[in-house]
């Protein structure tokens, strides 16, 4: 929950929210001040009837000679009274019922929740209409009737708030220290859970105004009060002769209800800022032409990455997630990229496929795939109006995503999704041919063929992950980028899947880039390991060398943190501090703040890339010294 002051600042920053807040406050002010504005009595039939707007009567007079402006302003009172009254009443009842249901749970919850559901199915307006028709019309009754049909809205929101708050530490602490349940609800739960209810309250107020106006328009309004609905009801008979009688109250109502709804929307966005910018199509980025001197070199290496940079914009902050990464891979090689979460390894994976989010930008770097330039100086290479990467996607470069989340479309069968992918790149293939190919890769991965007709949710986690692998192989790509392919699975399945990936790579002569936070997984599967820290590859070497001769203190810390099955029992080493996100220019070594061995040199001067042996480099001032010193416990 945001502090009110902070919320207000956020609202005022948004022109729409600021304007609607101003209009609501303005309506509130004139509603309160109506008797002191020196307006003619709204009921007084003093002036000439049917006077058009202008002169003494700004908005004209009605068929009885009453001043329309005065009636509209007095109508604001009625509208806001109904709005505040019914919203307050329904929030009060809703908060109590919702808190009880959420807090006590059990049978009370099921009875109350069922009641909310029933009430939500009742068409509000018709119930209110029936109540007013049977009981006679008064403003109080209208408010009660609206609240009676609206409280389940607030109750449902409160219930889910309470359910999530109940488990919070401070609530548990209050209970443990001996506070009674009712005290806990009133003191801790209600104040913290009420945010979304207030948001919904503004929408409820708009709804209440429209309901009251609708009733008045049907002739069921309070006879004794000047409401906008009633003015329109009376004005419609004079529509041809004096349209201003019905225009003015409608405009007033539209402005107030729209302001309330926009204000609710604004508060909602201020409370959940990520809501506004989620999703969306990839935006267009500037492209580059292929280099003039490019000659097709269908030889090794398969992929060359040079000084790649990727920057995220979050608010005003710029995070350099990939900060100058270079490596080359020969065809058929396997490279593991390891590091803590947030080190930029996944961003590197999506940068290679150019599927980066909209708030990310390439800020430099070159990528060549099979001799062909696909990224030049931070710009995707485009040829004859088409991005080069688009032609490579899936048919030559594919990915294996982590399948714990919805990596496959949940509403279509696996076969349909795989057939669609195959036929996208093999337009001449028919359905039968594509299905045969799906069966082939299923055999390859060891999934029973009939499972292809299943929906993603019908498969186990391990099976889903195998399906993702099958999908990545369906077009026989040259390069497969696997992004945390086993993170969501249990240990046994993890090992199986990694072994299968490794077997397939050798059999199909694939090049594999395995992105993982797990040193162990990478050790089993990859010939080469690159260790990433804060956007850079700090050490890269053949797997045996990395484990035998780690030459960067960060690599050594990662290996120290690995549990060992052999040797004496020991406490696992942990690395102090947090992986930091490189937001500004870094002075010195980026690992220095967490490094036990850091010296003044490390804090002032960026380390060079030190070549230690064939294929082994490390970015540390003392790389040679570390290389000479064996790791203590692991031997």
């Amino acid at each position, binding site marked *: 929950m945001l502090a009110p002051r902070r919320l207000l600042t956020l609202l005022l920053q948004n022109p729409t929210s600021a304007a609607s807040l101003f209009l609501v406050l303005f309506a509130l002010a004139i509603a309160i001040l109506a008797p002191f504005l020196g307006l003619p009595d709204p009921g007084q039939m003093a002036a000439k009837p049917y006077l058009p707007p202008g002169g003494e009567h700004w908005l004209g007079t009605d068929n009885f000679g009453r001043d329309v402006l005065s009636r509209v302003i007095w109508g604001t009172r009625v509208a806001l009274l109904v709005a505040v009254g019914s919203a307050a009443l329904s929030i009060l009842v809703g908060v109590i019922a919702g808190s009880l249901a959420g807090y006590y749970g059990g049978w009370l919850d099921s009875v109350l929740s069922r009641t909310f*559901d*029933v009430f939500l*199915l*009742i*068409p509000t*307006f*018709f*119930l209110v*209409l*029936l109540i007013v*028709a*049977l*009981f*006679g019309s008064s403003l109080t009754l209208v408010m009660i009737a609206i609240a009676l049909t609206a409280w389940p809205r607030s109750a449902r929101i409160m219930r889910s708030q309470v359910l999530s708050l109940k488990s919070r530490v401070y609530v548990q602490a209050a209970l443990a220290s001996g506070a009674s349940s009712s005290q806990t609800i009133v003191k801790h739960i209600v104040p913290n859970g009420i945010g979304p209810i207030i948001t919904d309250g503004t929408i409820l107020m*708009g709804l209440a105004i429209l309901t009251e*106006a*609708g009733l008045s*328009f*049907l*002739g069921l309004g309070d006879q004794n009060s000047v409401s906008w*609905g009633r003015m*329109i009801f009376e004005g*419609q008979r004079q*529509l*041809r002769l004096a*349209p201003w009688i*019905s*225009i003015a109250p*409608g405009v007033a109502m*539209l402005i107030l*209800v*729209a302001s309330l*709804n*926009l204000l609710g*929307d604004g508060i909602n966005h201020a409370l959940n800022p990520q809501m*506004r910018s*989620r*999703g*969306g*199509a*990839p935006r267009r980025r500037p492209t580059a032409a292929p280099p003039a001197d490019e000659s097709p070199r269908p030889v090794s290496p398969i992929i060359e990455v040079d000084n790649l940079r990727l920057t995220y914009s979050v608010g005003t902050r710029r995070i350099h997630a990939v900060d100058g990464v270079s490596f080359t891979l020969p065809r058929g090689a396997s490279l593991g990229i390891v590091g803590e979460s947030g080190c930029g390894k996944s961003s590197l994976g999506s940068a290679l496929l150019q*599927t980066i989010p909209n708030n990310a930008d390439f800020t430099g770097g070159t990528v060549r795939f099979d001799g062909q330039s696909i990224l030049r100086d931070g710009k995707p290479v485009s040829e004859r109006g088409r991005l080069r990467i688009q032609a490579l*996607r*899936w*048919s030559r470069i*594919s*990915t294996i*995503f982590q399948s714990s*989340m*919805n*990596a*496959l*479309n*949940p*509403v*279509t069968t696996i076969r349909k999704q795989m057939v669609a*992918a195959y036929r*996208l*790149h093999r337009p001449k293939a028919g359905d039968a041919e594509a299905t045969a190919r799906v069966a082939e890769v299923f055999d390859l991965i060891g999934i029973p063929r009939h499972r292809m007709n299943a929906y993603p*949710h019908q498969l186990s986690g391990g099976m889903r992950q195998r399906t993702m692998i099958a999908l990545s192989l369906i077009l026989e790509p040259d390069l497969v980028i696997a992004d945390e392919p086993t993170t969501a699975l249990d240990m046994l399945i993890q090992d199986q899947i990694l072994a299968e990936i490794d077997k397939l790579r050798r059999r199909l002569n694939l090049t594999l880039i395995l992105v993982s936070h797990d040193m162990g997984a990478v050790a089993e599967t990859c010939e080469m390991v690159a260790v990433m820290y804060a956007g850079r590859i700090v050490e890269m070497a053949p797997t045996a060398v990395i484990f035998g001769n780690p030459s960067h203190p960060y690599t050594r810390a990662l290996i120290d943190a690995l549990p060992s099955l052999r040797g004496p029992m020991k406490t696992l080493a942990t690395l102090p501090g947090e992986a930091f996100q490189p937001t500004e220019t870094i002075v010195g070594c980026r690992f220095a703040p967490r490094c036990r061995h850091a010296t003044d040199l490390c804090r002032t001067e960026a380390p060079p890339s030190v070549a230690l042996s064939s294929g082994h480099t490390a970015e540390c001032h003392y790389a040679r010294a570390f290389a000479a010193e064996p790791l203590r416990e692991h031997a």
Partner: protein
Amino acid sequence: MRLRRYFIHRLLQVLPVALIIIVINFLLIHLAPGDVSILLAGEDADPAYMAAVRERYGLDKSFFDQLIAYLGQILQGDLGISYRTREPVFDVLMERVPATLLLAGTSLVIAAVLGTWIGTAIARRPGSLADTVVATFSISLFSIPVFWLGLMLILFFAVQLRWLPSSGMISIGGPRDGFARIMDIVWHMILPVAALSTVWLGQYIRLARTSVAEVLSESYVTTARSIGFSEPYVLFHHGLRNALLPIVTVLGLELGLLLTGAVLTETVFSWPGLGRLIYEAILARDTPIIMGAFIVMSFTVMLASLATDIAYAALDPRVSL
């Protein structure tokens, strides 16, 4: 098979709601000030009719027996007798249903299709200027009191420009059959449909925009893009297909709100549907009709919610019992 079992299950959940609605109706009429027999038979009913009404509802029996009798009647489709026309309420209501269905159905289709289309298009650029403008616009649309919008349309297109008729469903003395009659009805429908669909349009734009944007941030969309599917394919095969789920749900939940708009619009345009009937019943204090309308509207909303649940289950293979 899966759907049939689901349908039966949901039906069993909905039936108690029907019961509760009837009980609410019964309680309201007994709590209301004044004699129940006068409420049901009208203030100046002749003694013979009054006696017939007392007999029919068992008003001399105990409260509980009355409730049972009332429940039995409603479940048999007997909603009482209109005291204005002395016809069965059920027949009077059913006579008006087609006109309401025509008006509400047409407006709903227009609003849902157009709104979903605009919302889907705008979901591609969340946070952009166009997005902000459309969001503000759609919120303003559903803040318009529909009956007032109707009046304004009449004022402009019927009174000022004299382009379109302002009330009724057919011209007096107009064509009685064939294509000409259909065109006559279409002609009369334009303004009320415009009013109703304008107000509903806002809801659908908003709903589609939110749902599609939500889906576009899912990882299967990233998968589809990595596979190389074009953006329109991703938008419609993945985005809209998955976003239809919340759209359908809200469609069912908000039907009550939609019917409210229809009733008010009919009143403005003298459209001979349920809304107009309710208005006339209010003026004539014809309580049985108002009660009957409440029951029919509630049951419609209930059945619509049931139908959307089934549609949801058909659209989403993950739904199971």
